């Protein structure tokens, strides 16, 4: 497939209703550190307790340039969270070859800029997702693949699967399907690139600003919270 085809295929993506971050208060500037209540006293020494801060943007012209670079150098966190993750593998093959778009799977969250959530998210996985997401360095983007990630899909009544990822981490692009074809995933990434170039993919700052809200949601389902409040 050529780039033009992908642009034409952009209708494979769906606009979904946005997260209801109602009138939740923003983060307060004097709030610098977290309690890390989930850790024992000994473990408190081992984890950083700083609170994430929304990042400042540079000048617009620079930011545009950087956004161009970011969009052309999407490094994917290769963390197979669900069955949709299997769709990432065909993407790097000769047939689809995301590397021509400057994308490559990256084995460590530190270096990746896109988190691809590949399908249903159980509570246990959610914990890992939150951890990995927080370990990524901003600006960071999330692409959620599969119906399960959107509304629970076939696990709509499962006692152990969350139904809305965007309640727990900010999601930039959803890709529907059960499972979506690689083309659809690719289209999702193209969409993400557009969003980045347009400066609309600011999930990182959203997460920092509404950090307490996200944390509340996360903690409401993750009952054994045995990690720091923010995994630096």
């Amino acid at each position, binding site marked *: 497939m050529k780039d033009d085809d992908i642009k034409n295929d952009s209708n494979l993506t769906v606009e979904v209703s946005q997260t209801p971050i109602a009138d939740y208060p923003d983060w307060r500037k004097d709030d610098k550190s977290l309690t890390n209540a989930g850790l024992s006293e000994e473990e408190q020494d081992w984890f*950083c307790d700083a609170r994430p801060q929304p*990042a*400042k*943007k540079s000048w617009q012209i620079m930011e545009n*340039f*950087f956004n161009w*670079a*970011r969009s*052309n*150098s999407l490094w994917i966190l290769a963390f197979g969270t669900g069955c949709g993750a299997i769709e990432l593998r065909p993407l790097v*093959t*000769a047939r689809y*070859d995301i*590397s*021509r778009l*400057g994308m*490559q799977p990256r*084995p*460590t969250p*530190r*270096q990746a*800029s896109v988190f691809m959530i590949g399908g249903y998210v159980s509570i246990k996985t959610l914990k890992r997702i939150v951890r990995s997401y927080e370990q990524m*360095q*901003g*600006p960071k983007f999330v692409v959620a693949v599969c119906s399960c990630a959107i509304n629970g899909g076939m696990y709509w009544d499962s006692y152990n699967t969350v139904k809305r990822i965007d309640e727990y981490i900010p999601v930039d692009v959803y890709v529907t399907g059960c499972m979506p074809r690689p083309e659809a995933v690719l289209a999702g990434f193209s969409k993400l690139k557009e969003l980045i170039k347009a400066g609309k993919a600011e999930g*990182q700052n959203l997460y920092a600003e509404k950090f307490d809200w996200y944390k509340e949601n996360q903690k409401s389902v993750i009952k054994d919270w045995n990690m720091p409040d923010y995994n*630096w």
Partner: protein
Amino acid sequence: MSIAFKVFWAFISLGVVTVWGLTLNGMVHKIFARVQGRLGPPVWQPFIDIIKNNAKRTAITHGIMFYLGPVFRIAGGIGTYMFIPVLFGSAYFSNFSLSGDVLLVMYFIFFGQLGMALGAGEGGHPYSAIAVSRGLAQMTAFEVPFALSVISLVAQYGTLNITEIVAAQQGGFLRWTLFTNPLAVITAMISMLGMNMYNPFSVVIAPQEIPIGPPTEYHSSFLGMLATNRGIFAGAKLVLFMNLFFGGATNLLILMLKTFWIYMFSVFVGAAYPRFRTEDSIRFFLTYPTILGIISVLLFSF
């Protein structure tokens, strides 16, 4: 030549090698992709990646050595380059090569590796340390054939001075070390496979197993700096090899041609081979290339 002049030209030369080295890196990815039947990233992809990494908004640090690790690494790369004369007979592209000979260059290569290893160590990630231990172990092994080939050159030319070695190879391509001392060149090229850490000697950065080795914890501008160094360091090593074994270069065009082809050797090998385990690569380097190297030394010492 005034010192300011020298520094100025050193910067120019550094710029050239950075651009060329990164372009080479881009070409490598392209070639790998074509070997695998893919289109591959554009040649300028390394530049975009570096810009993006430097444009990251957040960064964390595990401590002062972690912070300095990439600085050590790039200082090692630039320093190595600074002590190599780039163009033969050029007053502008000789850097600070008068401050030492090939021994200095060989040891300055370690500067960056040691600093990087320390930084990775402070990251506290076990994978970093595992990778460093692999990398160092492999390094001890491939340095042996390389040292032997340099020694063979010393036996041949009677000098450690890189400029003099290049000078001895002037006057027709048949006077290149490649043709006058082929065994040494073969030895050195094999050890270069280890230096460049492409397959089959890529166990150090083993991406799936110990996520890309020492820089597991590095990100943002740290990673950008490391990526920049990949270009500079590759350039420096290639220039060194070109000088020692392939007759050096008198202008930038020849330099690019020669370094490209030298690099392509390890790239082609890397594209075609699977990976060695650490102990296997140690055994490999200490047998065949070492024997070749010893033969080449013995040939010239009598």
